[in-house]
Structures are given as structure tokens and as C-alpha cells.
């Protein structure tokens, strides 16, 4: 006995589809005992109506024509369960996104809706009850990325007693926040609020910290991910190194200083920065003399702890995790290619705001004194250019970096505090100061710190008599402006972190068109990634400031705790299953399976057939297509069901 429910979705569907007519047509289809149109099927009364019809007419399977299953499939499964039916005896038809919203003509849209319902009715006749299994969830979480998002998520998860492994690509945790001087809008010292958290990570009993490490391979799925973590060789024994930095002092090989945004040089063997956690040196082989044909062994000779080991090799650690938090942060947009009129990076005194942040910082290359890179002079006139590689269609980057306005205002304030007789000019498009106390902060930069805000884009930057001329428009005055500045700071946009796309592929989650990792639903599932058990924290999901990052990290942690505190997880029954009496043992399924979910099974009579490892199967269905005798099929998507559907469409 089959029930069909046509949702009106207020007027979302009923404005274009005559839901009453669809219900009437459904009532005449084979096997249909009940058909009705409901205003909001997902609402409480809507779900109650389904329950009532199931009881009254003894329905055993349901077709619901409403919105996308991505929206409410889980809702209706629960409704069926409450009504006493197997939750998988339900088929959803999308007559909203795939019908009412994309058609204008009521007659045609109604006809299409009837066709879609007929297809589902045919299909559900071949449905069989499915039972999800239960698997024990591994009580350990992996956090990828040791910036403020990863740190906060790791601390929050471990606070619930769940062990955490924190993997960080670089030699120290801290991420981009560790590079900042002060934070808006309170002007807290960034290190002062971050460093204690970094130390807490290191000292926490439940947190295992792996630096210089990256995710190599991901297998399995929610509840039991098997993840290989590659710990890159640093030629330094982390246990022995005390962080005394003698090696760094004596090392003769220069290497770029990543922490100081390339403003100065570091050494081939170095400690990332003085507050690094863990405070150990690491050697970058590409810059080391010994690894480039030289004979130098200075660091090994001089190390008082005997921690330097040139023979150290990469180590791959395999672990099981119940859930994963991606917190890979952001990268900086390389403006030099798209803005040739800004000098292509050839003028040393045109720097990015990330570099300026290091000039402001007491732990930076200048010890917190603002000195311009070209001649070390103290700048008097500083020009800030907002939205470089943000909100700029011509550079192919329409997105807002969401923090540029605020940190530019902050840097203007700090400039005035460092050099009281300096003058800041800020070229902006709009000041976006939507957060709590943000507008007041920007106002303060203007009024108390005398920063001059010029609304308009900058067209050109060029040197003239030891200064840099910044030419732009002032759209409020309707005039051209020319500022002679000693230093120009570009607020370069934010991009996805380098390597984020590759990680997303390994985790089987999606990235949006700007390269940031995509959340499952922008409003209702903002920290869940497309793959179950993978959560997003911080700027890996999109540019955001520290308060929003910390809030999202907390939310991701709460999701992980909620998932793993149940102890066991219900597995989806929508996995492939082999009918051994039909299997020819050709193993084409195993050849094509991207997840290694097919194994050999020897039956009692000696026949060798394929077997699905359900915990690894993700229900993609590739094996179904490859199987010549049709012995392997996806539960809920069997050939019989698809054929029934096809025949109905083609009828």
C-alpha cells in the first residue's frame, strides 16, 4: 500500500505546480492507496498527517514530492520511523528546485511533476526495507592545521575527554595569528592572547601534537577514518632539541624567513620564531650546504644536545580517527601578477599588510620599529591601499576578504602610535565594519588618530624623488588625488591556503569556486563539510576574522563531541551488496573501486566471489556499472528500481 504526499511548500511549489492536480493524478497510479496535498509537509502537522495516513490506510511505503532530499530527507525518514515504518521505505521527489522554481508555465510544470511522481511510485514499488548497521566510533579526533582555529578546536574537543591529534604543516603551531602584532578592535597583543593557548596544546595530556606533518592518505569514513600522516624529516630529534638556537646562530646557509613574510633572512636550520611551539629547530634541506654538495656539519658539531641527525627520514604514521576537523586557514593573494601598475613587486617600499604586520611587531625583524625596507628610514607618510585582489572583477577576484578594512584601520592606528608625527592615508572602496565595536574602531582611527580616508581605487604607484607616488581617484570629491608616501601598504586579499584543494580531495569534500572548502549548507550546516564526519573551522571555509574563527572552531568542536560521545554510529545501509549466486568472480568491481571496499570471499563450495567491506563502501555505485552479470548492486538503487523508474519515464 502506497501513500503519496504532495507538498505545497507554502507557495514555493503551489504557485507554479497545481499540487491538487498532481495528488489527483497520483491517486490513480498503480498501488497508490492514498494521495494528498499538504501545505507544509515538513511541519509538525504535515508529518502528523503522514503518520495518520500510514495508520488509517495501512500504508507500507511513502512517496513525498517536495523539496530536495538534501533538505529534508532525514526529516521524513524520522517521520516514517515514528509512524512505525522502515525509514528507507520512502522516496523523495524534488518538485521544487527541479520543477516549480525553474518553470513558469503551470500546465507544463504540473505535467512534469506528475511524471516525476509516477517515476518515484514505480521505483518505490521495488523498495525493500533497509537496516543501517551500527559501528563503534573511534574516540579520537584529527585536527588539521595548528592556527587559532585548529588550536581552539583541539582544546575544546579534548576538554570533553576526547583525545585529539593536531597536525601542523609548518614547524610551529600558531598560524597566521602568531604573525600579527595587535588585533582589532580591542588592540590586544596577538601573541599575548595566543601564546598561552599554544603552550596549553603542547602540555595537554589528551592532545598529540605533530608538527612538520601533513595528511598523506585518507581511507574509511565517519567513525573510522584511517589516516596516514607524513611527518617530514627535519633532521632534528624533537625529543632532544632544547631550542637553544645555537645551530641557527652558527649556520652559514641563509634561507628565507617565512615567519617574517620574507622581510629578512633566516638560516637553513632554525627555530621558526622565538615563541614557537614546539620550541625546536628544524632543518630545511633545500637551503642546507650539507645537502647541496657541501661538507658543512656545523650544526651537528655544535648542538649541545646531540639532536641533529642528517639521516632522519620521513615517517608515515597511520591512525584511526572518528572525526576530522579541517582548519587549514588561508593564504595570501599574490598581487604582483595582476597589478602591474603597482610595480609588480619591484619597489621595495610597496609591501603587503602581512609584511607591515611584521614591521609593527616587537618580535619582527625591526624589533617593532617601523623602518621601510629600502633604506631603513622611518616613514612619515604611509599610504594604505585596500582591496588589492579583493572586490576586483578585473583581477578575477570578486570576493571580499572581510578583514581588510578592519586591519587597515588597525594598522593606521598603530602607525600613529609608533610614529606620532606620521600621517596615514587609506584608499578604500567601502568601509566594512559590521562586527561588534568595529564601526567605533574605524571612527576612532579617523578622529583620534587622524587617518585620512580616501574613497576610491588606486590606479598607479610609481617612485619619484625617493618617494612613492600613489595616484588614485577620490570618488567623493570627484577628483584625482596624488599622495606622496614613504611607504605603501597593500591590503592583499585572502586565498585558500596552499594545498587546501589537495587536502579537500583526500577528505572527499568540496571546495567552492574561490578555492575555499565548502560547507554543507550555508545556514543550517555551516561547519559540516560534504563528507560525514569532516568539519570545517576558521578561514579554510572562507575569509573571516579571529572572533568568527574562534566561534566556528568551537562549533566544529561541539559537532565532533556530539558525534563521538554517542560511542557508536549508525552506518548508512546505502552501500553496495553482492549477490554471491550471481557473481562471476571477475573482480572488475575491485579494479574500479576508488575506496578499496571490495574483497575476495571464498564460498563453502570453493567458488570465489566478491564481497563488499561495508565500512569502506561509500555508495558511489561505480562497481554496479562495472559488474557485467549485475551481481553487485547499491542498496536503495538496485537495477530493478532504476529499471522500473526508467520504464516509467520512457512510457
Amino acid at each position: 500500500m502506497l501513500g503519496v504526499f504532495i507538498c505545497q511548500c507554502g507557495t514555493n511549489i503551489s504557485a507554479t505546480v497545481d499540487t491538487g492536480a498532481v495528488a489527483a493524478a497520483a491517486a490513480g497510479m498503480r498501488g497508490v492507496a492514498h494521495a494528498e496535498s499538504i501545505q507544509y509537509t515538513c511541519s509538525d502537522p504535515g508529518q502528523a498527517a503522514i503518520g495518520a495516513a500510514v495508520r488509517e490506510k495501512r500504508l507500507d511505503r511513502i512517496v513525498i514530492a517536495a523539496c530536495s532530499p538534501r533538505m529534508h530527507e532525514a526529516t521524513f525518514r524520522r517521520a516514517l520511523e515514528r509512524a512505525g515504518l522502515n525509514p528507507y521505505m520512502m522516496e523523495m521527489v524534488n518538485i521544487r528546485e527541479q520543477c516549480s522554481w525553474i518553470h513558469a508555465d503551470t500546465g507544463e510544470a504540473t505535467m512534469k511533476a506528475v511524471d516525476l511522481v509516477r517515476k518515484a511510485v514505480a521505483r518505490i514499488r521495488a523498495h525493500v526495507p533497509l537496516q543501517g548497521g551500527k559501528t563503534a566510533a573511534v574516540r579520537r579526533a584529527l585536527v588539521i592545521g595548528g592556527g587559532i582555529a585548529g588550536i581552539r578546536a583541539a582544546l575544546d574537543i579534548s576538554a570533553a575527554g576526547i583525545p585529539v591529534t593536531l597536525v601542523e604543516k609548518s614547524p610551529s603551531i600558531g598560524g597566521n595569528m602568531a604573525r600579527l602584532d595587535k588585533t582589532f578592535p580591542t588592540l590586544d597583543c596577538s601573541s599575548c592572547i595566543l601564546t598561552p593557548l599554544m603552550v596549553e596544546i603542547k602540555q595537554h595530556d589528551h592532545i598529540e601534537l605533530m608538527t612538520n606533518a601533513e595528511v598523506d592518505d585518507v581511507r574509511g569514513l565517519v567513525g573510522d577514518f584511517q589516516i596516514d600522516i607524513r611527518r617530514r624529516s627535519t633532521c632534528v630529534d624533537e625529543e632532544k632539541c632544547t631550542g637553544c638556537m645555537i645551530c641557527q646562530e652558527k649556520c652559514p646557509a641563509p634561507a628565507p624567513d617565512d615567519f617574517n613574510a620574507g622581510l629578512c633572512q633566516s638560516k637553513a636550520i632554525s627555530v621558526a620564531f622565538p615563541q614557537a611551539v614546539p620550541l625546536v629547530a628544524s632543518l630545511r634541506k633545500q637551503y642546507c650546504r650539507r645537502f647541496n654538495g657541501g661538507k658543512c656539519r656545523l650544526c651537528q658539531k655544535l648542538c649541545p644536545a646531540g639532536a641533529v641527525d642528517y639521516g632522519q627520514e620521513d615517517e608515515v604514521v597511520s591512525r584511526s580517527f572518528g572525526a576530522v576537523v579541517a582548519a587549514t586557514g588561508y593564504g595570501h593573494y599574490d598581487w604582483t601578477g595582476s597589478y602591474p601598475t603597482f610595480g609588480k613587486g619591484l619597489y621595495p617600499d610597496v609591501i603587503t599588510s602581512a609584511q607591515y604586520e611584521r614591521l609593527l611587531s616587537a618580535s619582527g625583524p625591526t624589533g617593532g620599529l617601523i623602518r621601510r625596507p629600502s633604506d631603513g628610514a622611518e616613514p612619515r607618510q604611509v599610504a594604505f591601499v585596500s582591496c588589492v585582489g579583493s572586490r576586483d572583477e578585473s583581477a578575477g577576484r570578486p570576493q571580499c576578504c572581510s578583514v581588510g578594512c578592519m586591519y587597515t584601520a588597525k594598522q593606521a592606528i598603530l602607525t600613529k602610535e609608533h610614529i606620532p608625527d606620521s600621517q596615514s592615508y587609506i584608499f578604500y572602496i567601502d568601509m566594512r565594519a559590521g562586527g561588534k565595536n568595529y564601526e567605533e574602531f574605524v571612527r576612532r582611527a579617523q578622529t583620534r588618530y587622524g587617518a585620512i580616508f580616501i574613497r576610491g581605487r588606486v590606479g598607479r604607484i610609481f617612485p619619484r624623488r625617493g618617494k612613492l607616488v600613489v595616484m588614485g581617484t577620490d570618488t567623493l570629491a570627484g577628483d584625482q588625488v596624488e599622495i606622496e608616501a614613504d611607504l605603501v601598504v597593500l591590503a592583499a586579499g585572502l586565498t585558500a591556503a596552499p594545498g587546501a584543494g589537495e587536502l579537500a580531495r583526500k577528505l572527499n569534500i568540496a571546495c567552492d569556486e574561490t578555492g575555499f572548502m565548502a560547507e554543507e549548507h550555508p545556514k543550517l550546516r555551516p561547519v559540516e563539510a560534504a563528507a560525514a564526519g569532516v568539519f570545517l573551522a576558521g578561514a579554510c571555509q572562507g575569509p573571516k576574522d579571529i572572533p568568527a574563527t574562534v566561534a566556528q572552531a568551537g562549533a566544529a568542536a561541539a559537532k565532533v563531541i556530539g558525534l563521538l560521545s554517542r560511542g557508536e554510529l549508525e552506518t548508512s545501509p546505502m552501500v553496495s551488496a553482492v549477490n554471491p549466486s550471481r557473481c562471476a568472480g571477475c573482480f572488475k568491481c575491485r579494479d574500479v573501486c576508488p575506496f578499496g571496499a571490495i574483497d575476495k570471499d571464498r564460498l563453502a563450495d570453493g567458488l570465489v566471489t566478491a564481497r563488499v567491506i561495508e565500512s569502506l563502501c561509500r555508495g558511489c555505485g561505480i562497481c554496479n556499472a562495472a559488474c557485467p552479470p549485475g551481481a553487485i548492486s547499491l542498496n536503495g538503487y538496485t537495477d530493478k528500481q532504476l529499471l522500473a523508474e526508467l520504464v516509467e519515464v520512457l512510457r
Partner: protein
Amino acid sequence: MEELIPIIKKALEQVDVVLGWAQSPAAGVAVPAFFHTPAEADAAVFDSTCAHNLAVYLPRLADKKVGIVAKGCDARSIAQLIAEGAVKRSGVFVIGASCPGMIDVKKAWRCFGFGKQVCDAAGKVAMEGKTVAREEILLWKCRGCRDPEPVICDVTVGEASSEAPAPPAEPAGIRKRFAAMTVAERRQFWQDQFSRCIRCYACREACPLCVCRDVCTIQAHEPGWAGAAVDSPQSWMAQLIRVNHLAGRCTGCEECERACPVGIPLMLLLEEQNDVVEELFGYRAGGEAKPPFLTFDIKNDTWDEER
């Protein structure tokens, strides 16, 4: 080809059985034979009637070590079976036979009468005064043979590469007629052809790559992709499923068409499909290249169009 017998005898020292041919006294042509002992091997022959693709027996002998006399085209089937994991390379000992091209025994019988000894002198097939040009009764696949030498073999027998018969300048016979047909005519053509199909599945049984055998999907009841009735549309559908399952796997050995008792020109379908696969993917089954289907890597989202 007398040197074949000692080679088989030698091979029997290291394999359980050698697949080859012996003369059939009744039909006057060679038929497949399994040689288990050196004494049995004395009956081995290799002539222009050894058309059978013996690779068809290999998957079901996968637990034995098997020697097999293989023509160039048969070797492609063996290579494909190895690539698909149905046969282990270490489990087969391939005796590569240099092939002069095989004749269509049915055509020969039509000329000379059934059961007559069909002897093949170079160039001509002569018998009791009648003479036919060899090209006239060669199997279609042998004209313009692309693989006179086996792609894999452990030992060879016979003179290397007698010149392969030249490919016909243009399709002849049924192929010529088919190429000239309109789409509607082709539909009618296939309907007529498959109206003769008796669903004996000889095509499937003769095909070395139809490894499913008894569990074949075209005999399955759920779902019944192709009904079991002996009627044209259902038989046609069944054959199209078989052809589809051979996409990128068919080595063009022509055994299905040779085995068909009602003479349906099945190779018209398979040749077309093989051409499409080769054109699209630059891939011929039975070679060393990895099948295109298996080059898909879920973790790599850039598809190399050039490949």
C-alpha cells in the same frame, strides 16, 4: 607443421595440459584437442582450419598450469584475460604459432561438400578438380590481419610472419551492403537478423572474454534487462548487452560470429564498437596499455584530455 609435436611434448614436461588441435576424421578439419600425455600429442596438427580461439578454455582451467597453442589473434585474448586477472601469466605457457590466415570452413564446405578434407595448398584451395582462390574463403578477420605475431608467447613455432593477406580495398559482401544502408534500413536489417536468433548463447560460450558464463546478465530474471523470449527485439537487446559488456575488451577474434549456428553477422556490431573505442581512447584490447576505464583516479580531478 611437424615441429609442433616435439614442442608440445616438451611443454608437457612443465604443464598439466596443452590446448591444441587434432584432425577430426568426421569433418575433415581440425578440432580443439586437450593433450595430457606425450602420446596424445602425436595427433597435434596446425593448419588453415585451426580457427578456434582456444583461450576460451583458460579461465576455467585457472587452477592448472596450461600450455596453449595460440595464433596472433588468440594471444591478444590471452593477454586481455591476464590483464583482467582471469588468468595468471605464470599459469599459461604460450606456444605462439605463426599463422597463415584461417579459412572459413563453412564456406569451404559450401564449395566442396561437408566432411571433405579441406587441404590448403599455398594460394589456392583445390579439391577434386574445383579450385577456389584462398582469399575467397579466408575468415574476414584474417584479411588485413594486424597481429600475425603473438603479443605474448613463451616459444614460437613455424616460419615467422608469412605475409599477412592484404586487407580488402573496400568492404565486401554483407559489410558492403550494410555500409550503404540508411538508419531505418539498418534497423530492419538487425530485426531480420535477430529474428533468426534461437538464444543458444553459442556466441557467449565461444567468446574468451564472456567470463560470466552461467551467471550472465542476459539470462537474469531480476531485473529482466532482456526477456528470455525467442523474439527479435528481446534477442537483439540481449546481444546488445553482450556487445556492450565487451566494450574495450573485445579483441576481435570473431569467435562469436563463427560459432553462431544461424549466421548472424555479430562482428558488424563489435567491429563498430572496437573502432569507436580505438578512436576515442587510442586503446585496443589485448595490448599492454591500461584500459581507459581503470585510469580514473578519484583523487585527481584533472582529466588529461590528450591521453
